[in-house]
């Protein structure tokens, strides 16, 4: 008998049996465990049991009666079966594509394949355009370790290099993982610094090791509020007006998010409205366009850019 058949029969038997079954009762029913050598049969059964559990089958050993005299095996239906989830075809197609979108994500694929069973056809048709390929600078194992720690409220230990290059070991109570502007961050309570910090996962220098149960986040905590947006990313900011050549305008629109076209001048230059919280950050950014950009307003930003240029030009 092939192992696959044996395992399918074992799952079916324990799912459908009205009461827990002892190993003896399982042997009587399933031919696969009916050898003469009891030790080897028992070992085979133990291996099968471990394999099923490793795959997430909730195979339990419990007392067969209220006195717990005898132990039997069971798979409880309410713990085995996926609960009903009323996905629309659009939702399940979107999830199916998302699971295929990253690299090295077999767990996402095997997970989503369990979710598609009940949906009204159309998953293949809806996903005909192919996966929406995504790529990230984040190591997938580290990302999943961080997500897992955050979801279980565990602490993790890891090496971290700051943007300025300082490397140190951190122990962090994981509260959340946040995806912003193409990058993943772990947000949590840094035990040494006694503060909530966001760690860009691409700057983590080691694997994340589990450091046991962690602290609970403060009431009303939202991980996303702790991941800094780019200075020009927040809504409702004042705008600066900057004129660019037509070519530089295309580059600036792609590089500085939130930028909108104000108008095109008669000389062909394009005036962009660039949101800015802090002229000190925007100034250097404008310098990258060299003589193809001119700050129009506010005056403070214009003066800042002129001062920076004079410092280099030997004014």
């Amino acid at each position: 008998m092939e192992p696959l058949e044996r395992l399918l029969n074992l799952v079916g038997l324990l799912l459908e049996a009205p009461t827990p079954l002892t190993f003896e009762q399982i042997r009587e029913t399933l031919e696969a465990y009916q050898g003469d050598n009891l030790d080897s049969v028992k070992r085979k059964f133990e291996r099968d049991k471990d394999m099923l559990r490793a795959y997430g089958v909730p195979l339990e050993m419990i007392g067969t009666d209220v006195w717990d005299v005898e132990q039997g095996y069971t798979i409880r239906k309410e713990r085995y079966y996926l609960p009903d989830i009323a996905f629309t075809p659009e939702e399940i197609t979107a999830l199916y594509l998302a699971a295929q979108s990253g690299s090295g994500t077999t767990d996402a694929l095997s997970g989503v394949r369990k979710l598609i069973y009940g949906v009204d056809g159309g998953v293949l048709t809806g996903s005909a355009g192919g996966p929406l390929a995504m790529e990230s600078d984040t190591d997938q194992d580290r990302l999943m370790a961080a997500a897992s720690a955050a979801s279980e409220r565990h602490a993790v230990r890891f090496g971290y290099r700051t943007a300025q290059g300082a490397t140190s070991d951190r122990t962090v109570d994981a509260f959340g993982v946040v995806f912003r502007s193409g990058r993943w961050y772990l947000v949590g309570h840094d035990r040494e610094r006694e503060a909530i910090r966001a760690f860009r996962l691409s700057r983590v220098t080691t694997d994340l090791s589990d450091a046991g149960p962690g602290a609970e986040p403060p009431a009303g905590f939202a991980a996303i509020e702790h991941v800094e947006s780019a200075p020009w990313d927040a809504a409702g900011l004042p705008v600066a007006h900057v004129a660019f050549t037509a070519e530089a305008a295309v580059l600036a629109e792609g590089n500085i998010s939130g930028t909108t076209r104000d108008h095109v001048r008669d000389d062909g230059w394009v005036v962009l409205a660039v949101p800015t919280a802090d002229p000190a950050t925007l100034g250097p950014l404008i310098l990258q366009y060299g003589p193809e950009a001119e700050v129009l307003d506010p005056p403070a930003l214009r003066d800042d850019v002129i001062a920076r240029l004079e410092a280099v030009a030997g004014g």
Partner: protein
Amino acid sequence: MADRPRASVKVEERLARMLAVVPYLIQHPGTTLDDASRLFAIPVAQLRRDLEQLFLAGLPPYGPGDLIDVDIDEDGGIWIAMADHFARPLRLTRQEALAVYVRATELAATPGIPGAPALTAALAKLRDALGPDSLGEATGIAGAEPGTPPPSLDAVRAASASHDRLRITYVAQSTGERTERVVEPEAVFASAGHWYAAVWDVEVDDERLLRIDRIASVEPTGERFSPRGLRGAGRPLYTPSDRDVDVRVRLCPAARWIAEYYLARDVTEHPDGSLEVTLPTAATRWIARLLLRLGPDAEVLDPVSVREEIVAEAQAALARYGPRRA
């Protein structure tokens, strides 16, 4: 049949697949082998073999009427009966639930994803249905508002799907020049916050990687192309060329991000936390402008001609601000 030690990984995979495929096939009677093979990424021959195993399984007392009934008709349609206990799949493992949730969060927070609202709705349903048992405290897994996608994204993505050749104007960051090109967009993907297209450039007769936000205009040529299998996601974002110039730069700690953001070679670190890196570039003007931006936080070591280029760029830029500055 005796168990072979090497068979165990294989049988685990096969079991995992069966416990997901069979519920789908029961709920969708008549699904063809081909469709099931594509949906579950199982080769047709393997799927057939696994279904034959299923045919031998069932519920006690395992008489002929107790076994699962699997029929594959002449059109390849699969019909399964007597398997009600496998009509619903096994719950997702913690790892599977988290992985689906993380992938969906990532995609929903990427600008320009057509299914983003559906994904957001699906995430909420997953949270509700799977609950802390499967998913833990999922509320901490979150994506930011995705922002605005590049204007050309939809047109390029559609052309990539339908294999339509496009005429585009493109502004290269390195030269700052706008060129008109005829391209065959094969693969479209997002990476670290930007969208890219791997294209065949018809006039230069070579492969190019374009950032979609730098495509200034797109129009169809009316011609179709046959894909050459250009690589999409996972490829290096900068293709070195033998015309590249190497610029050696010293970066203060405040400018170290340059080494993460751009392709940097031969990185050496100084005790004060500054870095020395080589930035390969097709045009030094682009590096000169980057250095202008970094100001005192960066210094060109070689070639020194780039230092003069930085000063020239600054003087030209200053001239924009009126004669009193000239």
